[in-house]
């Protein structure tokens, strides 16, 4: 194999104000390599890849591309040098067509005398989509017509259209279903075959071990270890990431799927949006009800309907004794808590403090004669920060500065503080690291034992199998099948019902 070094970084340091994101990273990416960057939240994976792809400059240190000094001015410049990145956050622009998104900033390909030949552009877009096996996206359609998943794939097409030498995939697969993931995996293989390189970032350890042939582990902005394919071993990698030995009981260890007969929340024949077509369910006291399916099967909408923030067209959501849930206020008053899948967009006020975020659902309770005192708010928040061991400087610090796992703990703190007895959790461990994940699972199990009820909507089958008393698999807006907790239940059984 031609092992020519494509990219070399030398002592890359990046500071964001007072935060030190990278403390001198020196690595090499060779031709034909699929390099997995792995580490906990805040370890510097995304910062490093953003520097390579020109999104921001390093504070110090140098990059070398194919033996030449490389200092990208911006993402467009990086792309000209042959480095494309698919980002963690949404990268398509709303309000314009698919083809315009694919060729954003490169319209001159199709321009003659300043006029863009749109027919030619649509044709090229259709061809580019077809090349990676997508036929059901119309380049002439407005981007808004497509789901998050399709938009992500459109972004992929944009990223690879210039035929880059290095393709960076940053947490992209989290947003994709199996079909979308397969497309990405195929692309990665193609890059490998063509003696190019891929930098792959993901939280999914299994996936990353499968896809990559080299792993680079980062922790707190430091380079920790580099492993070649033969050295991959799950336990070792986890240890290197976390920096300590992990205890064995990641999920709950019992197979006792029992819970009380008392129904606490009930949905009947829910029709909502374009997806839900008659879903009914019953949640019991002390039950963890897992809901799984493909990302567009309607399970995320179901969570919103149960919490009262999405109105069903038909059907009803009621508490056990029959009180209907009509809006979020009423749900919260009935002691229901909801953790959104889109944490930063829906669950948190990033520019407000941990305190402001934590007390928000409980303002009514904290008020004495209509007045809310700082002292009461501080005491309230401190309890949650302590119980959940939220890592922060002070409780009046902005939530924005926290790592993903700690942000999620703040969201949990809101609902624990409000003494919720029903928790609707939509992808509660999405994008958080192993340490916090294990903590969340323990917390959920403890809540169950205390007689609280949990609905866990998840796209990760291992956690559904590992944590749920019952698993409800949804498909095309309907309940496909329900499984009881058992030691023999495995992923392939569930997948069969999902697709």
């Amino acid at each position, binding site marked *: 194999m031609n092992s020519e070094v494509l990219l070399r970084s030398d002592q890359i340091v990046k500071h964001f104000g007072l935060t030190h994101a990278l403390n001198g990273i020196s690595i090499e990416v060779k031709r034909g390599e699929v390099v997995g960057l792995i580490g906990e939240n805040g370890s510097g994976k995304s910062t490093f890849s953003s520097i390579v792809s020109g999104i921001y400059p390093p504070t110090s240190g140098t990059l070398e591309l194919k033996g030449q000094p490389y200092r990208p001015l911006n993402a467009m410049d990086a792309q000209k040098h042959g480095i494309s990145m698919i980002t963690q956050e949404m990268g398509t622009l709303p309000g314009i067509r698919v083809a315009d998104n694919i060729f954003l900033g490169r319209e001159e390909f199709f321009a003659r005398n300043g006029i863009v030949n749109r027919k030619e552009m649509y044709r090229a877009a259709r061809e580019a989509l077809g090349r990676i096996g997508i036929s059901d996206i119309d380049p002439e359609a407005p981007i808004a017509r497509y789901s998050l998943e399709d938009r992500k794939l459109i972004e992929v097409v944009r990223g690879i259209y210039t035929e880059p030498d290095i393709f960076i995939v940053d947490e992209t697969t989290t947003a994709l279903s199996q079909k979308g993931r397969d497309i990405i995996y195929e692309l990665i293989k193609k890059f490998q075959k063509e003696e190019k390189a891929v930098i792959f970032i993901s939280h999914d350890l299994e996936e990353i071990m499968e896809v990559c042939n080299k792993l680079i582990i980062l922790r707190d902005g430091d380079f920790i270890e580099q492993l070649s394919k033969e050295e991959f071993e799950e336990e070792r990698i986890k240890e290197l990431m976390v920096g300590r030995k992990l205890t064995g009981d990641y999920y709950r260890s019992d197979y006792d799927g029992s819970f009380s007969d008392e129904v606490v929340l009930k949905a009947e024949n829910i029709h909502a949006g374009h997806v839900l077509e008659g879903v009914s369910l019953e949640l019991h006291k002390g039950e963890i009800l897992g809901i799984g399916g493909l990302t567009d099967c309607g399970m995320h909408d179901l969570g919103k309907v149960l919490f009262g923030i999405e109105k069903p067209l038909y059907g009803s959501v009621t508490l056990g004794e029959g009180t209907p849930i009509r809006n979020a206020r009423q749900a919260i008053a009935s002691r229901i808590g909801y953790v959104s899948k889109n944490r930063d967009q829906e669950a948190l*006020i990033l520019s407000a403090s941990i305190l402001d975020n934590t007390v*928000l659902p409980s303002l009514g309770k904290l008020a004495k004669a209509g007045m809310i005192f700082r002292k009461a708010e501080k005491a309230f928040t401190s309890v949650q920060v302590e119980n959940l061991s939220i890592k922060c400087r002070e409780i009046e610090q902005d939530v*924005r500065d926290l790592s993903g796992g700690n942000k999620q703990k703040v969201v949990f703190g809101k609902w624990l503080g409000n003494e919720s007895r029903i928790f609707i959790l939509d992808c509660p461990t999405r994008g958080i690291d192993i340490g916090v994940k294990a903590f969340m699972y323990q917390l959920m199990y403890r809540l169950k034992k205390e007689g609280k009820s949990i609905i866990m909507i998840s796209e990760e089958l291992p956690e559904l199998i590992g944590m749920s008393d019952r698993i409800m698999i949804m498909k095309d807006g309907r309940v496909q099948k329900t499984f009881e907790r058992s030691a023999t239940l495995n992923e392939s059984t569930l997948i069969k019902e999902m697709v």
Partner: protein
Amino acid sequence: METKTKQANMYIDLLRKLIPFLGLAIMILVFQVFGEGKLLTAGNMKSILNQSVYVAIMAFGAVFVYSHAGMDLSYGGVIGFSVLTAILAGRAGAPLPVIILTNILSAVMWFAVNGFISVYLRVSPFITSLCIMYMCRGILNTVCAKEKYSVPVYIYDYDNWTVKITVLVVVYLICWLLFEKSAVGKANKAIGGNPLAAQQAGVNVERTRMTAYLISGITVGIGGFILMARAGSVSTSTGQGLEMNVITALVLGGVPLSGGSRAKMIGALIGSFSVILLRNGLIILGINERVIEGIQGLVLLIIVFLTYMKNKDGIWQ
């Protein structure tokens, strides 16, 4: 290292809170030195205080609207309308309580209109309030075209310091309590920070926003009474340009126009003095009144730009 970061953060945090006060102090210093001592004379101080009172009272209410990322540009027009209707009521023989009530209700009416159209019909409050300002100006221009209406003589008695300071303090305290210590204020800040997160935390987003407009309307009405007692009459130019003073007051007081948890009631108070002091100081320096408007616009733009830079940087905010 850890403690150093903590200290630096605390320092930055403190500095951010102090900037509006420092700005006011520096302005006083500069104008006093370069204005040959004319700034801090008893007469001039009174004049500054007089103009600051009604700007401040309007700014207190405006904090509610701007903290939820709402907007209103109609302050000048609406306060003019409020003065006009109250004077007409007074001329028709209405007793004092009715006159004050007219002040308040006529202002609340316009704010209810802006609130309703922007909250429930989802039209940009920028456009709605701009239209309202023009409508109010149109009404004033029409009614006051031939004749200048004056207040009943006894109203002049209320243009005294006891009334003005008492009203200022009472309105400030009520607004401070509502904004900093009650659910209404906290909900407004939450909406300004992230309306979706606020909704999912159980905030009644629409009702809270509407309440903010109504509170703002009430304070404009109260400000209207103070302005009316001072001016004694209403003309086509009553209240002209005050919207700019209110917005500049918020910005100089460190209230972010984009809303959120950084908004503070004390900012509106400090900012109101700052904006009037700025205008007054420039006059003392011998700068033409027409030019001052331009300078005010420039100052506003620079500060908004600086706060935007801080946000983008991700460090200060």
